[in-house]
């Protein structure tokens, strides 16, 4: 077993874990933060995406021990209290989700996208979300959602 200490959504969390424990399972099983989902075993689908020290990362591809000392933000930590993050608002306004399973990861990737490029073109958004798979929406409303958020972010 190995000791890890990870700051998750602003709170320091320590635990003894198996060295092979994936970060996504640490979040889901140890911390009961079940917003990050597992949709594949090969890092293609992006349903498990979280922010690791501010950058999007696929938490199924990282061992919890590799995140020792890091700061992790999950979908549960994105809203500011009752105030939704602009991307959460965008996904709601623009019907950017259907079954919702890919959505937490999609939103966290989009956070990273807008951090890097606050005024993306449609093609920038489509290319920027290529690491996240959605089987329900055909992506068009997701693109609209990110544009919605980008507009609000720029205004804000």
């Amino acid at each position: 077993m190995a000791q890890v200490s990870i700051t998750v959504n602003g709170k320091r969390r320590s635990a003894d874990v198996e060295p092979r424990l994936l970060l996504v399972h640490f979040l889901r099983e140890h911390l009961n933060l079940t917003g990050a989902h597992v949709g594949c075993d090969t890092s293609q689908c992006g349903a498990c995406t979280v922010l690791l020290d501010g950058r999007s990362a696929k938490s199924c591809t990282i061992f919890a021990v590799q995140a020792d000392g890091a700061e992790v933000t999950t979908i549960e930590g994105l809203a500011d209290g009752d105030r939704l993050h602009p991307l959460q608002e965008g996904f709601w306004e623009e019907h950017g989700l259907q079954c919702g399973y890919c959505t937490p990861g999609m939103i966290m990737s989009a956070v990273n996208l807008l951090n890097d490029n606050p005024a993306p073109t449609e093609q920038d958004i489509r290319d920027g979300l290529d690491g996240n798979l959605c089987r329900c929406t055909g992506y068009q409303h997701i693109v609209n959602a990110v544009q919605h958020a980008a507009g609000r972010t720029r205004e804000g």
Partner: protein
Amino acid sequence: MTSSPVLPKLVGQRVKRREDPRLIQGRGTYVDDVKIAGLQHLAFKRSDIAHGRILAIDTSAAEALDGVEAVFTGAQIAELLGPMPIGTPFPSPEHRAVAADIVRYVGEPVAVVVARDRYVARDAADAIAVDYEPLPAVVDPEEAMSGRPALLHADFPNNHAVGPLPAGTGVGGDGTVDDTAIDQAFADAEVVVSQRMVNHRLAPTSIEPRGVVAHYEPGKDTLTIWSSTQNPHILRTFIASLTGLGQDQVRAIAPEVGGGFGSKINIYGEEYVAAAVSKRLGLPVKWVEDRSEAFLTTIHGRDILAYVDLAARRDGTVLGLKLRLVADIGAYNMLLTAAIPTLTMTMASATYAIPAIRATLTEVFTNKTPTDAYRGAGRPEAIYFVERGMDMLARELGMDPAELRRRNFIRPDQFPYTTQTGAVYDSGDYDKVLDRALEKAGWEQLKAERDAAQAEGRLVGLGLSMYVEICGVGPSSGLPTGGWEHAQVTVERDGRISATTGASPHGQGNETTFAQMLADQFGVPFDHVTIRHGDTAVVKQGIGTFGSRSQAVGGAALHLAGGKVKAKMAKFAAALLEAHEADLVFENGRIAVAGAPAAAKSFAEVAAYAHRPIKLPAGLEPGLSDEAFFEPSNNTYPFGCHIALLEIDRDTGEPRLLRMVAVDDAGHLINPLIVEGQIHGGLAQGIGQALVEEVVYGADGQPLTGSFMDYAIPRASDFPRFELDNTVTPTPVNPLGAKGVGEAGTIGSTPCVVSAAVDALRGLGVKHIDMMLRPERLWRIIQGGQA
């Protein structure tokens, strides 16, 4: 008397989904999020060969691992569970949840481990050693029809699961076959187009894999089963039956379900095993599929090949269609497997008044994952074969593909129209939808642009497809589960409304659309309505969500139940207001006498009175709750026209979709925003089939597409912005006039993308290309190889 706000009518409006706040904050509960004290985890040991006899199985190393609770081989599971039932009347070979003697596809379970966590369970499954005698595998369905090199099931000679089964003109209900009319059609033909086409195998690939939690409680003798399922009531029926429990002892819960696309209709071996093992051990157990398992063991879709012959006159009039179908259904019959390809025969007339049709279907066992319903389920195959045939005919005749289609349309005054293969189309206006699509796409200008691009040497092509499909899957005569849906509507004491629906959603947004309907029906605020679903302890009855039936069948049941409660509530209001119930209007949170708005009671006042009726109006029972079962008289048949513009890179063979226009007619729409989302998603899957998706097996039966590294589902950058429009042709078969829309996009898009690719290569003499349109295949054609 206080004035109340004026409430907007919500049906037909783009209402934001009420499901979303929990899902965008990571607060939805999917099956893998369910935790119970003492929960154990299952892992399956699966066959790594396509066909073989189990000689020995050694579980000792697995049992010795710390944290392993139990290990069951197929033989041990067979003591707990009988063979898995199917839901169709076709003969079916024995299919065990865990194989005991012979394995017939890669991924078939041979043992199951129960352990304290999923890591230990996987370690233990890996520690099981199985000794097989390999048997020859057969993967090509036409080869399989010879019975060589492998016969999968002894009682099914030549690997024929079904058929050859004839349908269409001259085929009697008693199976007699008269070829006169179909032969005459081809004898009269001035032109015949013939082509072998493959509608290849796909993986449904919901992003949430399958999963199940089973919790048998010995002291109560009850089982609760959470499953990522499209139909918890059907799950309950089958689980109860196989575990020896009564349906009253089993509670099935579909929590948030992360997509299904047909694949989560089935009751799978893992679900039966979880239930049986939980019952045997008296412990709650969980199994969640990983993606590699999903590619091996969740049902696949499509995989039908067709020999298409289309007979016509030179003026474009279609005289006859022959469709010889071979469906590769894999190793076993699942719930609806055998019925799915029959829908391809049912829809063989597409949108055309074809006077003579002969379809013949053979379903074949091969050493592959079983097939079953995948979004569209039999209809995309029919439309693909007919629409590609029509496109080839247009080329042969030098006709505009839109005009050829128009010439053969079933006319609006011919509905209800009975096709030669027995479908009864409810309503349609195909000219209208075609005209709208041509206008939306700018068809004439697009043709000119394509011609100009081709003159420059660019490989640009234009494709058009009509479709009609089966939605609102309906009468009980056509569904072994029953073809109705159920709803219960309750006006609570405080005037708020609770309703339940048996249409258990997995992304369709029923909580929103159904609340829109009830808010309008009762004239109350949207926020005062709650829709519950997905739990057989809460939802008394139900069938489920498949065949685009939520709105057309489930919504209709809700509307009828709401009508019953509203009628009763009007009686209570009439007593309070000393008015006649027929004079009452429900609006803006009040029940008022028409023409006398001052004479009104608030909705909540009437609700309270109905729950404490002093005094009780004559002939009424207290309370405001009622239910309805809606059984439609027929399916619905929505339709549409899709147009694609595509360019192929001459140097790399890579196809690029430039435009995608979809005009669909699903009848009346409750929430156009949600409908758009359904169509977008359908288009993505239909285009995905044409361009990027294909399940591939090696000659030895080894799957070559076992992960997202090998099997592509479309990404955001694969698509242009979809251009949608719609027409409205209501259906007469339900009170809403709604037809259903879940599968539409998947059906029209595939043939029009392929036709666009063929059109792009017409200068090279290409007449047809089988999917998927992988760049290598297109590049070889461009380099002068064959299609």
